C-alpha cells in the first residue's frame, strides 16, 4: 500500500486534521466495533513465501487437462487456442471494471464482435451480453417467455442436466403465490431426445414455453427440432432451445429452424474449464421488439460518435435492474464479460471453416469411440449414433463408483454419473469426446475398461 509508509500516513492525517486513523471510524458506535482479535491462517507477506505455498497447493491438483479425461455434461475440455489466453490475460481486459464509451472503446468493440459472431453462428440477430451460465440463461429465457405470453407453465426435457435443471427451478420458483413458473417435463429417450409425440400431447395453451436442447444433455442430436418448434408455436408457446455453439459449424442454427429464443453455454468457445469458473451463458433471439423488450441482460449496441465514427453504447438500459431496480426485467450485475472477449477471439480464429472442421472432428471422434467401446464386454453404448460429443456408457456388471475409481488410478477420468437420470441403466456414465482426444487416448480408455470390467 503506497500510502502506508509512516511519513505518508502522517502527512495525510495532518492534511485532514485527524490525529489517528482510528478517529476516522467515529461514525461506527463503539459497541458495534469488533474488539477481539480475528484468527486467520498465518500471513504470507512476502511473494516468495506466498508463491511457495500456492505452488504447493497446485502440485496437489491433478487437473483433467493433465490426465486423460472424458468429463463433460455441462463443462467440457475443448482446445483453447493460445491466442485466446493471450488476449484474456491482457491487463487491459483482465483487471478493469467499467469506464466511458471512449475509455472502454476497445472492450466494447470486442463485446460487439462477440454478440455479432455468436449471432452469425445462431442465425439470430439479437444477442445480449453474457449471463453466468447455460442454466441461468435458460432460467431467464423461460421467465422472458412467461412475461411474453403471461402463461405460467413450461415444458422441459425429463432427462436434463441435473445442475442446469436445479438452477432453472430456482429461477422459476416464486415467493408470491401464483407468480411462480411451474416446470413440467416431457419424456426423452436414452440420448435425451424428446419423445415428440408425448410432447405434443403435453403441450396445451397454458404452456409459456417449450424448452429443448440440441444436443441434449445425454448427447443426442435432436433431429426433430422443426416438429418441436411447431408444437410450441401451435399452442402459442415460445420455442426456447439450448445449444452448444461449438456444434454449429455442422448442426443447423436455431434461427434456421425457427426457435424464438436460443440459450446455451459460451464455455465451449475457447474458455478453460477453471473448475467451473469458465462457465458463461448467452441469450439470443430474433431482433424483434417483442423479445428485445424482455432482455434482462445489458445490451451493447453499435452506434456512432459525433464525428461519424463507429462506437458502442448501451441500449435499453432502462429495462435492466440498474435502470429500474425492482421494476426491471429480472436482474443483472457482474457477469462473465471477460469470457465474452475470449469467445469473440475464439470465433474470429475459427471462422466458418474452423467451426465446420471442429464439428466434424468431434462427431468423428465420438462415434469412433462408441464403436471402440461397443466392442468391450460389459460395456453398453447407444447402438445408433445420433449424438454429438457426449453419450452414455453403461457398465453392465459393475457399479459406477468402483469403475470410476479404478479408472482414476490409471490416470483416466471417466464420464459423469448419470445413473439417476437413466433408471434403465443404473451404472450409466456420460462420456464426452472432443477434438482434444486422439486415438491413443480413446484406446487407453478402452484398454482400461477392458481390464477393469474383465
Amino acid at each position, binding site marked *: *500500500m503506497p500510502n502506508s509508509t509512516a511519513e505518508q500516513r502522517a502527512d495525510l492525517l495532518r492534511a485532514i486534521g485527524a490525529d489517528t486513523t482510528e478517529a476516522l*471510524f467515529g461514525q461506527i458506535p463503539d459497541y458495534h466495533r469488533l474488539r477481539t482479535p480475528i484468527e486467520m491462517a498465518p500471513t504470507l507477506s512476502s511473494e516468495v513465501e506466498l508463491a511457495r505455498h500456492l505452488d504447493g497447493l497446485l502440485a496437489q491438483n491433478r487437473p483433467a487437462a493433465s490426465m486423460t479425461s472424458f468429463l463433460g455434461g455441462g463443462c467440457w475440455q475443448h482446445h483453447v487456442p493460445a491466442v485466446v489466453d493471450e488476449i484474456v490475460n491482457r491487463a487491459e481486459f483482465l483487471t478493469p*471494471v467499467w469506464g466511458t464509451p471512449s475509455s472502454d472503446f476497445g472492450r466494447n468493440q470486442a463485446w460487439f464482435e462477440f454478440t455479432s459472431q455468436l449471432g452469425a453462428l445462431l442465425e439470430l440477430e439479437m444477442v445480449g451480453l453474457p449471463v453466468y451460465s447455460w442454466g441461468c440463461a435458460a432460467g431467464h429465457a423461460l421467465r422472458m417467455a412467461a412475461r411474453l405470453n403471461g402463461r405460467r407453465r413450461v415444458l422441459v426435457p425429463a432427462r436434463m442436466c441435473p445442475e442446469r435443471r436445479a438452477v432453472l427451478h430456482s429461477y422459476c420458483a416464486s415467493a408470491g403465490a401464483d407468480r411462480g413458473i411451474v416446470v413440467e417435463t416431457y419424456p426423452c429417450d436414452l440420448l435425451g431426445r424428446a419423445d415428440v409425440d408425448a410432447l405434443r400431447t403435453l403441450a396445451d395453451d397454458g404452456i409459456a414455453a417449450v424448452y429443448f436442447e440440441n444436443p441434449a444433455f445425454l448427447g443426442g442430436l435432436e433431429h426433430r427440432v422443426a416438429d418441436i418448434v411447431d408444437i410450441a408455436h401451435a399452442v402459442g408457446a415460445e420455442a426456447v432451445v439450448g445449444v452448444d455453439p461449438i456444434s454449429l459449424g455442422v448442426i443447423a442454427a436455431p434461427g434456421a429452424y425457427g426457435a424464438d429464443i436460443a440459450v446455451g453455454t459460451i464455455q465451449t468457445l475457447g474458455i478453460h474449464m477453471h473448475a467451473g469458473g469458465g462457465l458463461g451463458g448467452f441469450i439470443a433471439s430474433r431482433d424483434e421488439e417483442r423479445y428485445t423488450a424482455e432482455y434482462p441482460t445489458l445490451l451493447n449496441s453499435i452506434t456512432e460518435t459525433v464525428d461519424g465514427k463507429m462506437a458502442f453504447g448501451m441500449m435499453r438500459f432502462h429495462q435492466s435492474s440498474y435502470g429500474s431496480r425492482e421494476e426491471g426485467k429480472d436482474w443483472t450485475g457482474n457477469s462473465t464479460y471477460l469470457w465474452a472477449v475470449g469467445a469473440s477471439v475464439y470465433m474470429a480464429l475459427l471462422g466458418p471453416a474452423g*467451426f465446420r472442421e471442429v464439428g466434424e472432428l468431434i462427431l468423428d471422434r465420438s462415434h469412433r469411440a462408441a464403436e471402440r467401446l461397443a466392442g468391450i464386454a460389459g460395456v453398453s453404448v447407444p447402438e445408433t449414433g445420433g449424438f454429438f460429443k457426449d453419450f452414455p456408457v453403461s457398465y453392465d456388471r459393475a457399479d459406477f463408483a468402483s469403475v470410476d475409481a479404478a479408472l482414476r488410478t490409471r490416470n483416466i477420468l471417466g464420464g459423469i454419473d448419470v445413473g439417476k437420470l437413466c433408471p434403465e441403466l443404473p451404472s450409466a456414465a456420460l462420456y464426452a469426446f472432443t477434438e482434444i482426444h486422439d486415438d491413443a487416448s480413446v484406446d487407453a480408455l478402452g484398454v482400461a475398461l477392458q481390464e477393469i470390467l474383465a
Partner: protein
Amino acid sequence: WDEPIIMEMGAPGRRGQHFPRVEGGASRVPAALRRANPPALPENSEPDVLRHYLRLSQETMGMIGISLFGTCTMKYNPRRGEQSAMRREIAGVHPAQHPDTIQGLLAAVHGMEEALRALSGMDGFTFQPAGGADAAYTQACITRAWHASRGEAGQRTEIITSIQSHPCNPATAATAGFDVITLPLGPNGYPELDALRAAVSSKTAALMINNPDDMGVYNPEIDEWVRIVKAAGGLAFYDHANFNGVMTKIRARDLGFDACMFMLHKTFGVSKGGGGPAVGAYGCSAELLPFLPGPRVVRAEDRFTLEDGSVDAPKVREYLGNLHQVFKAYAWVRAMGVEGLSEASDMSVLLNNYMEKRLLEVRGVTRSHPDMPGWRLEMTRFSMEKLFEETGVSALDVQNRMGDFGIDAFWLSHEPWIVPQPFTPEAGEMWSREDVDYWIDVLAHVVDEAYRDPEMVKTGPHNQVVKPLAPRNLDDPAIGSTTWAAHQRKNARA
C-alpha cells in the same frame, strides 16, 4: 489504431485455426439437422486476429489509467495469484472431478471460507453466486426456502430495503417473487427507525441492506434494525458491498445479521475482468446452513471432500462457482493477513477523507448531507449540481472530459439519483497519494475549464480513441443493434 470491426476483416479462405481433417464427420448428423449455410463469420489468419484484439486491448484504458470507480473498490490484482490461477492445475480442472484429484484447490476454497467466517462471524459460506447480484439473489432464494420450510410459503412475501441499496437487492428480491418495500433516507443519510417499524409485518420475509452505503454513511442503529426485522419473523441480510471501509472493524454476525455477502472481485483483490467472472461469497448463520446450495467443501481429517446441498437449498448456478477466482482471493487474503486487511481499511478511509477535503475546495462541488458531522467512510457522494446550474456542464461531461487526462470514469450513482449530478469516486488503498492528487487536480482543471469554456468540456473527450457518442436513440428498434447483421439490415433499410 483505426481498427475495423472483425466482421469486415479478412478474406475468403483465410484460417486462424486448423483442425485435423476427417472424412465424413458431417454424415453423422441427421440430414434434416445439418447446417445448410456456413455461418457468416469472418475469415482471418491467426496473426491478424491476435493483432486486432491486441489493438482493441490498447484501446481500453482500464487500470492502465487511473480508475477510482466508486462502489467497485478498484484494487490492485496481485499478479502472483492471477498467474497461479491461470495455470493448468486450476484452469484445466473439470468441476465434476473427484475431490481426491483436486485437493490443492479444495484446500484453498476451504481456507477462503475460513477467512470469511473469521471476518464475518458467519457459520458457512458458498462461493456459488457468480457476483454480488447473484449473492443477493441467493439471499432471496434462501429466504424463500427458509420461510417455506417453516410453513410460511406464500405468507412471507415482502422484502425491505433502502433506496440507497444497490439495485440488485430489490431486483433480485422481485425476481424471486417478493414484493419490495423501499425505505427513503432520513435527515442523517440513512432511513429512520420509524419507517422500518412501519414497514415490518407478518409478511416481512427479509431485510436486505448495505452499511455503510455508497455515500460513506454508516447507520449506527443497524443492530436495532436487525432486531426489529427478526422480531417480525424476517431474516436480515447484510450486503457487504462496501466492506472495504469496515473490514476487521465490525462483523455482520456480531450485529445480528443472519447472512451476508462479500464480493471477492472487489474487496478481496481479484481481477474484475471488465464485469466478471466474479464471486459473491454468501455466508450465513448455522440456522440457514441447510439452505446453502452445495456442493460445499468440507474437511475430513487430513483431506477435503465435497458435500451435496440439501434438496431445499436453491442452486443459483451450476457447480461450485468461479473457483479460480476464489483461489485468487485466497492468495490475496493469505498475503494480507488480518493486519493487512485492517490497514487497507484504514488507508481507504483516510484517503477518502483526504479526497473529500480537497474536492470540497473545488468550486461547484458539494457533498451529500453536508451537515452530517464526522468523517465519511470509504466513499463520499459528491454533487456537481452547483456546477451544472452555473455552467450547464454535467457530472457526466466532467467524467468524459477527464478521460483526456488518462483518468477513467468515476461513477455517478446508482438509480435513482437522490443527489443531483452525483459523482462517487472511491480512493481505496492501492492508489498512491500522487495519483489521487493528480486525479483531483484534473477534476479541478476540468471544473475550471467548465467555468471558462464549457463547450470544451461538453464536447469532450477530445484526444481519446473516439469522441463522444452522437445523440441517437439506441432504444429505437430501428436503430439499436447488438449484432453486425442487425446493424447492416437496419442501415440498408435506412
